[in-house]
């Protein structure tokens, strides 16, 4: 199924969790904040939250700024 992750179309397996997606991307869960369809997801839900077809996933982290 398809999701949109950080503006990019991505094909993922049925039943993939948010935590599984982060693992595939090589991102430690504690280094990012995830928003799905503009709703912030608590970190303790990453491991169990299953992604759905068409989900808009935003993975966000701190960068240098003034």
């Amino acid at each position, binding site marked *: 199924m398809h999701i949109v992750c950080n503006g990019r179309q991505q094909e993922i397996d049925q039943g993939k969790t948010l935590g599984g997606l982060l693992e595939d991307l090589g991102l430690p869960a504690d*280094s990012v904040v995830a928003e799905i369809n503009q709703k912030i997801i608590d970190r303790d839900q990453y491991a169990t939250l299953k992604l759905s077809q068409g989900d808009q996933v935003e993975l966000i*982290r701190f960068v*240098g700024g003034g």
Partner: protein
Amino acid sequence: MLTIAGTEFSSRLFVGTGKFSSATVMEHAIAASEAQMVTVALRRVDLENPDDDIMSHLDRDKIHFLPNTSGARNADEAVRLAHLARAASGSRWLKLEVTPDPRTLLPDPVDTLKAAAQLVKDDFIVLPYINADPVLALRLQDAGVAAVMPLGAPIGTNQGIQTALQVAIIIEQARVPVVVDAGIGAPSHAAQAMEMGADAVLVNTAIAIADDPIRMAAAFKQAVQAGRQGFAAGLGASSTSTRASSPQRGFIGESLNFIEE
């Protein structure tokens, strides 16, 4: 000691983390600045470069984090970014920036006030970046912000305190700390803001793009300390008519009057 929202800071220099040539340089510059408050921005993870994580270079035991809402063009976007920042940092502290025009990056006063009121309700500690507008500064204080951050000049211009008169009025009227932000391009600018009675300054570009950012960070630390000391010591009044520093009698001149005294 500077106190903002009940938290004490012994350093009055806040440092931004943007534009550094490397994370290592940034880390050393922050150490040299002795800043205890640093700003960070939120952006999408670069999925091509997932290891690029600024947080691994900042020691949160020593440094207080001030996430900003840079990139927000209106109040709604700023509020959304603020909640993301709180989820990412676990902290209520926020530098509120609403900049609709990417050319000038000047802050939108109407949406800044609107977002500030909402975020105070949402239990954030809000430090809004504003134009040097004394009336807006008061309105924001009424809305419950923890400090105000008037600009000296537009972001990244290094033009110094172009807004000195308005900043002076903001300081005179302030019931919360005043942090002069943006435009500070040289240590002397930071010293000037502190001599005027600003509670702190925020510097990013001037340090990050210096030939030697670590040395520049140390220079800003000294300038902020010197400016604060100057303010605390009480500056003498300025005047347009001359007032001699040396005694006006006993001159060694043609008359040699002093011999006769």
